[in-house]
Structure formats: C-alpha cells, structure tokens
C-alpha cells in the first residue's frame, strides 16, 4: 500500500515538474539523472544480482549513443529508429563480450570489460569515417508532436518551440525510465531473477537444478547492455552533442559507484546513486560547496556512529573507524585549496569508503534502520500437487548403467573402472569408507566431473561428459553432502528454482507478465508449496533458507531436487548431522519418494538407514567396487567388514 502510494506520488511529481520548475537547467539535470538511472538499473542486474563486475558500461552506453549519432549524422535516421537499434546493437556487443568472458569463473568479466572500454574509446576516435573521431557528432532534438495549435486552448502549454522540444523529450525520458523500472522489476521477480540470485549463492546447485549458470549470466549481461544502449541513445539526444571523451573509464566507475552507493539489489538504490553521481561534479567544482558537504557527512557520521555505539557498545572500535575517517575527510576538505587538482583522489576515496563502510548502499543503510519487512510465513501446500507428470518407472529394467568408469586426478584413481547398474524403482545404496570414491561417483553422474574413461548410460543414452544442467534436464536430480542451498532465497523460491523446467513462456512473457506467465508462475508456486508440505516445511515457506536449522536444510534440498521431476534422485549423505527423530522423518520421506516411482541412489554412513531402505547396496573402497548385493548379504561380506574395520578377515573374525 505504502509502496504504491509512493510510486504514484513520485510519478505525479515527475509529470508536473516541467510546469512547476521553469529553469531549463534543472529540467536537463533531471533528464540526465533519469538517463543514468536507466543505465544503473540495468547495471544492477549484473552487478547486484549475479555479482559479476562490469567495468565497461560506459563503453556500452557510448555504443548506444553513437548508434544514435551515426544513424542521424551518416544516414539521417532519427530518434525513433535509433531507439530500438541502439538497444539491439548494444545488446549484441554485450553478448560478444559476455559469451567468452563468462565461460570461466573469476574476475574475467571485469578484466575483459575494462579492456573493452578502452578499445571502444580508441575505435570511436580512430574510425573517423563513421564517427567523426574526436570532433564528435551534433544532433537535433526531435519534436514528437506539435502541440502549438492545442496551446491556444490550454495556456500552460504555451512555450517556445525549443522549450517544447525540451519538455517533450523530458517526457520521453520519463516514459523510458518507467518502462525500464517495470521491465526490470518484472524480470527480477520472475524465474530469471530467481536464477540470477541462485547462481550467485551456489553455482553448482544451480547447474544441477538444470538452470545453466553460464546461460543466465550471459543473459543478465545482455539485458544490462540493452539498457545501457537505451540510456546511450537517450543521452545523445539529451546532450545533442557526443564525443569519445564522454564515455571513458571514469564514467564506468561512476556507474559502479552509483549502484553501490545507492544500494544494490533494489530499484530505488540505483536511482538514488544516479542522482548523487550526477550532482557530484557540481559538488566537486566548488570548494565551499565541497566543504559544506564534507561537514554534513561528518555530522551525520558522528550522529549515526554515536547512536550505533550506544546501541551496540561491543562494536565500538569497528564503528569508530568510519566516523574518524569522515572527520579526517572534513579536516582535509578545510585544508584543501585547489579542489580540481584532487578531484579524482576524492572520487577514489569515496569509492573506498562506500565499498568498505556502506556496502549495502544508502538504501540498504536506511532499510536496515527500519523494521524488517520480509519475515517467515506459511503457505497452504497441497501434497497432491507436489508430484509431477514424470513417468513412473516400472521395476526391473536398468535405469542407470555405469560402465567401467575411470576418474583420475593426476596419479590418483578416485574411481577405478567401476560398474554400477541401478534398476528402475529401487533404492540403490552406495557405501564405503571415507575417501572410497562415493562422492566422486555422484559428481561424475551429474556431470560436474567428466570421467577419464568409461561411460554412463541413463535411459539408454550416454550422459558422461555432458554439462550438469543438461544432465539435470534429462531427469537426474541430486542433493549435496555439504548443503548447497540458495541461502538468500526463501524456501519457496529455492524449490521454484528447481521448477524452471515447468515454464514454457519466453523472456518477453516474464518481462511483460503476460497471462501465460502468471498462470505458469502460479502453477509453479502451488507445486513448490506442495513439495514443501511433503517434506514438512510449508509452515516456514517464506523464511530465507539460511535461517533454517541444519537438518531442515537437508530436507529442503530434497524438496528442491524433487521439483526437477527426476527419474533418478541422488542423495549424498542425507542423514549426516540429523537428529534421531529427523532420521525417522527422512526414512519415511525416502520410502514415499520410492512409492512415487522415483529411483534413488543413496550414499549414507548411517547403516541403519541404508539397511532398512535400500534394495541393493554397492560397496566402494579405494575407488573399486568390492561388494554388491542385498543389504543382508553385503552386511556379512568379509571384504566389506575388512574395509570398514581395517585389518584382514582373520582379525575381524577373531
């Protein structure tokens, strides 16, 4: 309610602004803030949600601007064509960068985008035949709609032709900002947003849920580039003159600073940040203004820090540092004589301060001061809705056939030519002492490792060497020995990440929230609620996953894996760390899953669990299979006893 009122009010203020404030200077300033907001909102998708750093958004912004400039200058094509073309071309460049740079994890995207930023500036300078080089390109402001006849009846519309063009362009930018806000909000609230957050929390689990981390990171970057392009086109028509120097490295850093300072992972944060960085040059141009600003910051820091110290005395030392820094900064401002010389030093110090003492930004800081919004809550889950349509496998036939698998790490053979045959509809136990190769087997089966030799056939098709998300898509789901949840998502959202496969709509459906998207989202929500009900977690469905006790986290992993509609479910030590009553629950759940026709491979150290739920048990030791059979047979096997208790059969018997 409150949020809606705020939105309406903000929009109304933007609409009446050109008539309330007559100064063209402030109109232009607001336009620039809105254009920067379009870019920073887009940047937040990459930087805030997926956690990748782009140091090249100024270049993408420049590509958008130059698309508009070149189209107008060389071909005489105007604003309305430049708008879509600028977005598409910039998104294309984004794909060109992201496709190679995101193949590896690490700081590669930052390195590549930094290089890209420099090269783009050089190319704009050099390719004079296209861009006029350092001379830059001038444009004419488009007049969309000639309202002069109308102005006779509505006196407040009376204005000069120039002002009319300015005001109209202002509204174009307002519309662009609103569209940006709506599209980004909807995308981030959809399965795409969930994937972006999930891949940051646990990339491996994300891949194993059939949600390709690589694909979604590239997607996020391309979306982000598209908005940078939109911002660029608007920028070229707001400034009416563009030159290569407008799009340098410092601007890229400014965008990053804006998102961080305003507050990542929010809509309002990047807008606050954009407003601050647009005012920043004005602030840094005048020494008196700068001194006043530094004084205000110091006063706020002392007040805020003082309150914080009173509330949490144990953090006194940690709070004192930023407060002291703010005071020192104020003293520095008083002694500073020529501010222009040290502009960049001040800029750099601001970045450092924000990164280390305001990591959640201004908005994050304010939100932390207010009472918490999202807390735990229940959903009404119907267990019958939980089960998908995956064909229940009939007993007997081999669902999974592992053939002479060899997994070598340097000289170590973690799996040494192991065969494994899992019959459909059964629970197949995989046991062995620590380091015997059980988890390696899991990782080979789910595509995290490509085996050195040998094959894995699932439903008669080879899966060894395929990517984890492909294998997950074919119907193999898993849980993890060291729990891999999407810790910042709620329980419900965790399960819904596993349900990505149930959507058939496109990204456009998600961005526009079409009826189809809503239908699919509701269906997924119901199923997720049902699955949570099945594992007994529906009462805390809206709690963040990281707040769950350990034993419940394991159950949530099972619910999430079931969301994939798997034919084969791999459980990696599901009972580890569970209390006795939790283990009883777990065994009940495992039996129920089997009753629904889902085949399972169970790695477990709790022998009572293994013995009571498994139909067949295979035993690994030092990467080799040493025994196989029914639990009762394996339990008495001499080699197994020797492997577990050490020594030869003789000592065990004695």
């Amino acid at each position, binding site marked *: 309610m409150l949020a809606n009122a705020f939105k309406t009010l903000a929009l109304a203020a933007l609409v009446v602004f050109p008539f309330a404030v007559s100064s063209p200077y402030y109109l232009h300033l607001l336009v620039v803030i809105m254009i920067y907001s379009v870019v920073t909102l887009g940047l937040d998708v990459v930087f805030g949600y997926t956690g990748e750093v782009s140091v090249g958004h100024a270049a993408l912004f420049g590509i958008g601007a130059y698309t508009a400039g070149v189209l107008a200058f060389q071909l005489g094509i105007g604003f309305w064509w430049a708008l879509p073309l600028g977005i598409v071309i910039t998104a294309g460049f984004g794909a060109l960068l992201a496709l190679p740079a995101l193949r590896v994890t690490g700081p590669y995207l930052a390195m590549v985008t930094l290089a890209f930023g420099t090269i783009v500036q*050089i190319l704009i300078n050099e390719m004079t035949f296209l861009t006029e080089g350092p001379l830059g390109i001038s444009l004419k402001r488009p007049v969309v709609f000639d309202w002069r006849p109308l102005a006779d009846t509505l006196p407040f519309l009376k204005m000069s032709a120039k002002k009319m063009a300015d005001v109209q362009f202002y509204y174009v930018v307002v519309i662009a900002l609103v569209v940006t806000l709506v599209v980004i909000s909807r995308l981030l609230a959809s399965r795409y947003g969930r994937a972006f957050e999930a891949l940051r929390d646990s990339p491996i689990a994300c891949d194993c849920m059939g949600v390709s981390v690589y694909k979604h990171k590239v997607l996020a970057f391309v979306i982000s580039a598209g908005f940078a392009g939109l911002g660029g086109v608007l920028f070229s028509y707001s400034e009416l003159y563009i030159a290569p120097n407008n799009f340098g490295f410092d601007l890229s850093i400014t965008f990053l600073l804006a998102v961080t300072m305003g507050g990542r992972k929010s809509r309002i944060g990047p807008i606050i940040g954009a407003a601050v960085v647009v005012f920043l040059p004005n602030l840094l141009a005048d020494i008196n203004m700068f001194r006043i600003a530094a004084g205000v910051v110091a006063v706020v820091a002392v007040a805020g820090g003082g309150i914080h110290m009173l509330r949490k005395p144990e953090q006194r030392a940690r709070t004192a540092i930023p407060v002291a820094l703010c005071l020192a900064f104020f003293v520095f401002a008083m002694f500073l004589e020529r501010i222009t010389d040290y502009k960049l030093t001040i800029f750099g110090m601001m970045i450092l301060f924000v*990164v280390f003492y305001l990591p959640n930004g201004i908005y994050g800081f304010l939100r932390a001061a207010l009472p918490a919004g999202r807390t735990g809550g229940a959903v009404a889950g119907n267990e019958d809705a939980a089960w998908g349509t995956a064909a229940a496998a009939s007993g007997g036939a081999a669902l999974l056939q592992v053939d002479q698998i060899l997994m070598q790490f340097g000289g170590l053979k973690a799996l040494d030519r192991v065969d494994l045959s899992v019959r459909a509809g059964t629970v197949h136990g995989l046991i062995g002492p620590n380091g015997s190769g059980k988890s390696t087997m899991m990782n080979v089966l789910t595509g995290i490792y490509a085996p050195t030799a040998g094959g894995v056939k699932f439903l008669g098709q080879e899966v060894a060497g395929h990517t984890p998300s492909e294998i997950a898509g074919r119907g193999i789901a898993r849980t993890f020995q060291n729990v891999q949840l999407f810790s910042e998502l709620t329980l419900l959202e965790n399960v819904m990440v596993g349900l990505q496969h149930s959507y058939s709509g496109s990204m456009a459906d998600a961005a526009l929230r079409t009826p189809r998207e809503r239908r699919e989202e509701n269906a997924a929500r119901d199923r997720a609620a049902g699955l949570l009900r099945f594992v007994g977690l529906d009462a805390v469905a809206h709690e963040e996953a990281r707040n769950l006790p350990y034993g419940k986290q394991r159950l949530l992993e099972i619910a999430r894996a079931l969301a994939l509609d798997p034919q084969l479910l791999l459980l990696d030590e599901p009972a580890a760390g569970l209390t006795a009553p939790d283990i009883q629950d777990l065994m009940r759940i495992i039996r129920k899953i089997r009753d629904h026709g889902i085949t399972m491979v169970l790695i477990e150290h709790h022998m009572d669990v293994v013995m009571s739920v498994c139909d067949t048990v295979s035993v690994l030791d030092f990467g080799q299979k040493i025994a196989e059979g029914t639990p009762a047979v394996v339990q008495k096997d001499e080699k197994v006893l020797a492997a577990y208790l050490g020594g030869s059969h003789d000592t065990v018997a004695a």
Partner: protein
Amino acid sequence: MEILGQLIVSGIAVGMIYGVIAFGYQLTFATSKTLNFGQGEALMLGSLVGWSLVAVTGYLLMLPIVLAFGLLQGAIVERLGVRQAIKTKSEAGWIMATIALGIIFRNLAENIWGRDALKFPSPLPEAPLSFAGINVLPMELAIVVGAIAMMVAVEVFNRRSIYGRAVVATAGDRDAAGLVGVNTSLVITFSYALSSLAAAFAGVLIAPVTLTGATMGGVLGLKGFAVAIIGGLSSGFGVVVGGLILGITENLTGFYLSTGYKDVPGLLLLLLVLSLKPSGLFGKAAIKKV
C-alpha cells in the same frame, strides 16, 4: 624482410614488459584469487620514483630503492583495498577498491610529477646495435634480460626458500596452509608486495625506451590483463609467450594497419583465447570441488 625483423625485435622488448606485469597478476591471483586492478599505476609510480632518484643516485643505486618502494606500495594496496574484501568474500569489493586506489595513485602522481611525459635518462648507450640490418637498442636487450632474471629469481625464491614454500602452499590450498601454521594473510600481503615490486621494476626498465609520466600506467595495466588471460592466469611460462605474442602483434598491426589501431588486437586475442581455451594457452583447467 628487414622491416618485419625490426618490428618483431622491438615487439619482443615491449612484450617482455607486458609479461612482467602479467606475472605480477599471477603472483597475487595464486595466493588470494584476487589481483590488483591498479597494477599499471604501481608500474607508473615505480618509474616516477626512479626518475626522481636517478639524477641523485645514478641508475644502479636507484634500483634497490625503487624495488623497496614497490614492496611497500604493494603491501599498502593489499592492506587498504584487498584484505577486508577477502574476509567478506566480496568479489566486487576488491575489484572496486583496487581500481579506486589506482585512481588515487594516478591523481597524486599528477600532482607531484605533473601531467607531462618525462624523459628518463638511459643507463646504457642510446645508439642502436645492428645485427644483420636489424637495429636493437641496448636498453631493449636489458629489458629482456632483466625481465627474465626477475621472474627466474621469484620462481627460485618460491621453490627453494621456506618463505617461498609458504607462498606455494597458500596458492595450493589456503585453508590447509593456514592449518599447518602458515600465516596466510601475511603471505597474501607479501604476494601483493612482490607483485608491485615486479611492476615497479618493469617501470624503470621500460621508462628509458618510452617516456614516463603519470598516465603511463593505464594502458600497460590493460595489456597485462590481456597477456595474463592469453597465457593463463596460472602459468608462469605462459605470460612470457603471451607477452611476446601481444607485443609482436601490436607492432605489426601498428605498422601494416595504422598506429591508431595498435591496441585493438589485444582485445581480439583476449576474446579469441577465452572462446577457445578459457584457462589460457598454457593454463591448467581448475578442478571444481563440491
């Protein structure tokens, strides 16, 4: 043919400098999975400090002081920009912090040494030597020898000394090294110090051939990125080859195409290598652990 030879020879000298910068990235990436986005500025500072000293002390006495300065500068970068970000496991944190420090260093250098390029006096004769019609500056030879000597010295230190083994152990597995008593955060500080030392050294090697000045760092730091990715962030040998490939390609592009486009092949090579072999030409693919 002679022109081609000439272009290749002078490309080698520049390429070795790129290699040394990339080597600096490798040192810190190995121990902490982070690297200094202000590495070019470390080079620039070393070079300018050297420029101020060389008139007083001469080239040889200036070297150890510049190296010591590099160590100190690197340690400062790690303490101010990287340490806290590593603790909070924030990728964005260290990237932005090292960029910010780079901006600050550049701005301070502009205020101390001015904005103009400065001529660095050459310690060796400036008349070129001629081999089969190809001219080689004595300083270019010194660059190649000096760069290789420095990388070998660091490698020997890492393999032979107990301190070096602490570095290698931290690179292998930071947690395990910590458990056996290695002060891993000190090792990371040290790797940053070494990395800046390498950059500062590269700065005083290259300055007599090019010019020096507050803005020299940015582009060189970028070239180092390209080389580190082309050669592989985890391969010591790779950066030498990567540096040579880039240095020579740039010279050829500059001559046969246009000097304006000289910096473009770096990015293209970088994207190409990432598409074909993401771990770099000589890098090993990392094994994910679950």
